């Protein structure tokens, strides 16, 4: 197993000197960045032309993602962002977003190299203004001009595929790893076909087709992502999605029966506090179901995604994730929100560190291409309307 996540190397990179692997003699480091560094690195062959003898081309190396963010470090970033955003009536929020994204990206490392967020505040601000304008139209309609709501919804439906595609493209093209940006090349029409074509199927099957609809959308998203000229492959089936939703449905029905029954029983005999019992049981079930869908679907999606010679292994646990969500909720309520950085960081850390990158051969097959600019409007609309269909 590689030495990339051993604690000493992580500790060394936090002091003012270079990360430990950078301090080794140059001759021993050539294959460090190829994810193929069996420990100890010093035992690596010194010649660059000879591949390491213990690394057969077909063998698979797993490298875990490491998240180095801490709540202590993120807290001031979060609070300064909030304060400046409120003081500037939201204008600063575009800069805040860059700052936040930068923090998360640059503290997520793979083989000791951080990811990089390249989004710029001004395009994000423009996108946000347009998104807010659209939201204002929607808000005014629902509040004051209900009769025109169908038209607004129709316009939104026509716009939705565009938002999805643009948001994915913005996020991909302004995310980089090792000086190479990701890419997303889905088009409006192809997205429209997937989203509405399969939605018809979902309606015809009275909702049972939801899993297959979602699977097609995920497949569409994954296969249109690319890195270094290699497009994503996606092999998860709708049946796998369905199984997770089926389990989630069972839990929810069970909780509804138990919580509702218990609540009414107490309500009828003792006091109004029966309401609380019902609320607590249903909330607990909701938490479990949410964690279940997040963990199981996350695992299904990542474990069936490939990017060229790179595969993934996701090992999220339902109970662990539910526990994190539950303690987050407790902490947020008890601290009146001041523990937000703590909740965000620990969730992100758990999710990141349960993702492993599996590499066959080396990374030389990925070839960098040119960068293309893309407006942030779609990404901001997607964010404000919660239209996140990305990975």
């Amino acid at each position, binding site marked *: 197993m590689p030495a990339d996540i051993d604690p000493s190397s992580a500790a060394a990179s936090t002091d003012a000197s270079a990360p430990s692997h*950078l301090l080794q003699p140059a001759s021993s480091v*050539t294959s460090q960045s190829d994810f193929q560094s069996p420990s100890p690195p010093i035992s690596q062959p010194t010649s660059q032309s000879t591949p390491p003898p213990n690394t057969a081309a077909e063998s698979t190396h797993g490298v875990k993602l490491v998240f180095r963010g801490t709540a202590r470090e993120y807290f001031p970033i979060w*609070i300064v962002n909030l304060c400046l955003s409120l003081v500037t009536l939201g204008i600063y929020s575009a800069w805040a977003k860059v700052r936040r994204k930068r923090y998360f990206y640059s503290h997520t490392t793979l083989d000791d190299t951080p990811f990089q967020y390249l989004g710029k505040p001004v395009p994000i601000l423009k996108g946000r203004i347009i998104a807010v304008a659209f939201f204002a139209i929607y808000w005014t309609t629902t509040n004051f001009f209900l009769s025109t709501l169908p038209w607004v919804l129709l316009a939104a439906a026509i716009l939705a595929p565009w938002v999805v595609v643009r948001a994915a493209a913005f996020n991909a093209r302004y995310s980089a790893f*090792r*000086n190479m940006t990701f890419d997303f090349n889905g088009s409006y029409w192809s997205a429209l076909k997937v989203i509405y074509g399969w939605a018809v199927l979902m309606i015809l099957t009275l909702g049972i087709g939801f899993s297959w609809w979602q699977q097609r959308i995920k497949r569409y998203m994954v296969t249109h992502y690319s890195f270094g000229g290699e497009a994503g492959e996606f092999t998860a089936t709708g049946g796998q999605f369905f199984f997770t939703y089926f389990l989630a449905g069972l839990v929810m029905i069970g909780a509804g029966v138990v919580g509702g029954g218990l609540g009414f029983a107490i309500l009828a005999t003792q006091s109004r506090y029966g309401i609380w019992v019902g609320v607590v049981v249903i*909330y607990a079930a909701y938490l479990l179901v949410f964690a279940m869908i997040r963990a199981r679907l996350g695992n299904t999606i990542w474990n069936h995604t490939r990017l060229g010679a790179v595969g993934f292994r996701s090992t999220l646990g339902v109970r662990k994730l539910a526990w994190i969500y539950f303690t987050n*909720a407790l902490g947020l309520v008890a601290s009146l929100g001041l523990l937000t950085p703590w909740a965000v960081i620990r969730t992100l850390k758990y999710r990141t560190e349960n993702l492993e990158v599996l590499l066959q051969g080396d*990374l030389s097959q990925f070839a960098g291409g040119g960068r293309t600019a893309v407006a942030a409007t779609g990404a901001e609309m997607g964010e404000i309307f919660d239209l996140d269909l990305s990975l």
Partner: protein
Amino acid sequence: MNTLAMLTTTSVQVLYFAGQTPQGEAATLIWSERTAKLIGRRTDAQYAWSQLRVSPRVGSADRFIALPDGGQLQCADHALLDRLPQESRTEGVVAWLERQWGVALVSVALLVAGLVGGYFYGLPAAAEYIAPRVPMNYEQYLGEQSLTMLDNQALFRPTKLPAPMRQRILDDFHRLRADLPSASRLHLEFREATPAIGANAFALPGGTIVLTDQMALLTQSPEEVSAILAHEIGHVELRHTLRHVLQGSVAALVAATLTGDASGVGLVVTGLPVLLVQASYSRDFERQADDFAFDLLKRRGYSPAVFANVMERLERKRDDKTRKSTAQEQGAQSNPLSFLSSHPVTKERIARARAAAGVTSGN
């Protein structure tokens, strides 16, 4: 790293990414007066300082130096990097702010003060200022729409009250609104409601007030109908619909900004603040409408105590419906969900009505 060490540092270990493949090359960046030399096994290049762009400091993460030829260097954070041209000046300032714990503490204090002040004073005052300045037309249009919608959804049916009774209530209504600024907009509609709505009255935007048959039949005197109507007139006169929409949406917007980070990790609890704040504003409006009603009733020569009477009867009727148990007898104040309620606790409203009437509750 102390100053002396910084000055004596002349080279930095870096990883060089040309941008063609995701493979890095270990290299050394050697500093001199105005240039930097990049020495790797396959690389030997020299750049002027002014050609380099350094990514902002963020936490303790490694930083990047963009090269003019599209290449990129990754290196550990280093004080020396601050002396190079920066990719973003503003972020440099912010990054400095983030490192001062005093700033963080002041920020927390400012945030709390701002939120508390905005919630108790700023937002209600702003809405109160704006509401009378917004033209009435759209609100009337909205009110008509709401009534049509309620009628169409079969929540309301045509009234079954006898015509003389309706005429009597209308006469009282006209007497109540007589000299009010909103008199010309105020308009009364009768409807029979579904059992789910039951005895109730609504002030729709624009000045239409709907009285359900059940409510009319619950009252035992013209004064009691007037008390109910006076409360609804209060909502219209004080522009509560508009103020509620204004305050509610600004509160939602601020809450969304504040909880945005935690939205994916907190589940439901991040929506809680908006719910609580909106419910609390709604209760404030009910109290204001009550006060308005007490005042109006007194001016028309009625005692606000009639409001208390009708509220008591309403409460009894609702409790009969929900089959009260002994624990509940202690009163609605023990309702565990009262903090989520859109209306103040009925007992409190009754007490306030009696206080306004100058009558102490005898029982």
